[in-house]
């Protein structure tokens, strides 16, 4: 067992922490009215349609909100004041990346999907990014409509507050598919990060064998969906076509990655003639292009096994600190991971890897 270095994250020096996964929730469909075309405002007022869900989590599940994160007038994650009070100020966060989980992908009506995605992005600019300089945002898009998603990325992609495009992990088609070329082109054109996040509401089941009964299963099984997305993105040559692509896996867990890379590398050695454009072992692409947040930690029973797994990742550049506020998991990376790491690695996870990924400038001093 390694001995904790004794340095707790809460007393880290100012400017030394970047939180790569914080959730801002749309408080109600009315909050989007100032940003929606009049047609959709009237439609919401006159019909049963009230827009998409504000999160992929079941509303009352114990993972959905940590204590004190529910404001009086909206769902958890809908208050900038609470975000400041519970995360930004107490942890001394230099920058936090917002990932708004508004379920655009569940809207099958294409005009609604586009209108609500644009409204959410304009709402993010006005009510979060313009009000709080420590925040950066992720562009919400309709991934089921890649051409229109690309258009939305081009519409807001030059706003300096947006650093990422948010893609739900569960999708109708794997993101490597050539159906998504316009989306990858737009991400590449605007020099944004592709942030693939836990969840999704594409309509097809989360398991290769259909629908599980419990949320518990879907939650645990989400790691397999991330694995399938990586297999697709590498196999389809997305990273060869767009060699500067950066991908962040958000709320994915990471302890599954070494075993996945071992298996995928072996498959590539055996079957590479099927995908001749994949020039290197998949693990080489993953280590170059893919980053992962440390929450949820999915930690093994002992710290020693956790450190072994981190070593098996084969690179110190892969992990990003994240609180996943306001969601709640069993382990807390600040308490259960960072204190056990060598300072050079802890520093990379706290802020250096995120700074490189998102191109954030170093604050002087």
């Amino acid at each position, binding site marked *: 067992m390694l001995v904790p270095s004794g340095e707790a994250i809460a007393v880290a020096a100012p400017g030394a922490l970047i939180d790569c996964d914080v959730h801002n929730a749309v408080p109600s469909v009315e909050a989007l009215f100032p940003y929606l075309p009049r047609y959709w405002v009237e439609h919401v007022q006159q019909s049963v349609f009230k827009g998409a869900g504000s999160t992929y989590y079941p509303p009352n599940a114990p993972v959905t909100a940590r204590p004190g994160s529910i404001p009086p007038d909206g769902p958890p994650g809908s208050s900038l004041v609470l975000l400041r009070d519970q995360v930004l100020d107490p942890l001394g966060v230099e920058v936090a990346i917002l990932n708004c989980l508004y379920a655009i992908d569940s809207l099958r009506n294409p005009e609604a999907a586009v209108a609500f995605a644009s409204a959410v992005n304009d709402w993010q600019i006005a009510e979060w990014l313009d009000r709080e300089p420590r925040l950066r945002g992720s562009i919400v898009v309709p991934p089921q409509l890649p051409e229109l998603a690309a258009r939305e990325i081009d519409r807001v992609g030059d706003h300096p507050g947006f650093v990422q495009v948010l893609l739900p992990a569960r999708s109708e088609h794997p993101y490597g598919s050539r159906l998504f070329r316009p989306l990858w082109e737009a991400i590449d054109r605007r020099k944004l990060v592709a942030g693939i996040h836990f969840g999704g509401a594409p309509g*097809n089941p989360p398991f290769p064998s259909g629908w599980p009964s419990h949320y518990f299963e879907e939650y645990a099984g989400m790691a397999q969906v991330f694995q399938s997305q990586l297999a697709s993105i590498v196999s389809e040559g997305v990273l060869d076509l767009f060699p500067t692509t950066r991908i962040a896996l958000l709320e994915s867990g990471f302890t599954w990655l070494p075993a996945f890379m071992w298996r995928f590398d072996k498959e590539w050695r055996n079957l590479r003639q099927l995908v001749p454009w994949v020039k290197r072992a998949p693990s080489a692409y993953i280590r170059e292009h893919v980053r992962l947040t440390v929450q949820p930690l999915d930690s093994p029973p002992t710290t020693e096994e956790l450190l072994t797994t981190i070593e098996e990742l084969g690179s110190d550049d892969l992990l990003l600190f994240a609180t996943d506020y306001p969601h709640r998991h069993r382990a807390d990376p600040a308490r259960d991971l960072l204190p056990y790491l060598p300072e050079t690695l802890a520093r990379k996870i706290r802020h250096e890897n995120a700074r490189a990924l998102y191109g954030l400038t170093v604050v002087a001093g």
Partner: protein
Amino acid sequence: MATTLTREQTRTRVKPAVIDGDIHNDLPSPQALLPFLPAEWRDYHARFGTFGYSATAYPRINPNAARHDAWPPGGGNPGSSLTFMREQLLDAWNIEYGILNCLIGAGARRLDQSAAVAQAINEWQVATWLDPEPRLRASLVVPYEDGQLAAAEIDRAARDRRFVQVLLIARTAEPLGRRKYWPLYEAAVRNDLPIGIHFGGSGGFPFTGAGRPSYYIEDHAGMAQAFQSQVVSLVCEGVFEQFPTLKIVMIEGGFAWLPPLMWRLDAAYGRLRAETPHLKRLPSEYIREHFWITTQPMEEPTKPAQFHQLLDQLGMSDRLIFATDYPHWDFDAPDQAFPVRLDPDLERRIMADNAKGLYKF
């Protein structure tokens, strides 16, 4: 033409006897099954044939997913000639017992057809494989998408104790923990047979939780994810509370993914246990008690030491069962399968003793 390894070439490389947990026997031709089918299904096959789920037509590399040298000299599909299987596998590698996992016929969309074909396959296995070759045991092919029909076939055929396992597949029409499969598990327990879940199948859904992948490499590598979701389902649905003596063997799924899956399940259980009050223990405890795993395709960590770490993290060294996957292209040879040199005691357990305990050889 690829070189065939004969007994003379290989026997010097092999020391002790081996139990092979995954061998595939095939029909020499579809017509070979007809004598075992009832007249009405023979007629149906003649007029219509079998159809399953579409959208699985990936360009692949090896015909029949077979080793180049596994086509019997006398004709027929790889795995269809007992004589050639004896020469190329059983004799050549000193196989003491081998388990046949026949991958034909149980996934048809018509469940009554599936049941008829499963029964015919099992009778064909007895006549063509088990009667002539005492080293072979077989898995029962069952119409697994109908729990009652599958249970009936288990009760009918399990009287022949050379059937040592019930065969399911990794991709099914519902997650395997769901109640429609419970009569099948009840029958397996009643007949004291483990359930084997083998690589492959299609239940009609996209092959991944992220939709339909484009390439066979994703399909093939993605089987690890299919197995993981089945483990999640079997554990979370409470199958092992309902059937406390049920044994599950995961065949050709790999196993490096299992420690991180156990960690993730245990961590999630800490937060979400209120949703599954029927679970009385940690998910990892059910897994370590109820699951066995065959070794092929063996994961190959970057560094040899990591393979030992993997075995430590798994904590299931008494549950690993060696398998060749003969005659398929990703065959693991008994003397080359492990990426590291194992402790001799551990090696003996994986190569033979664990299987002897499970299958009561």
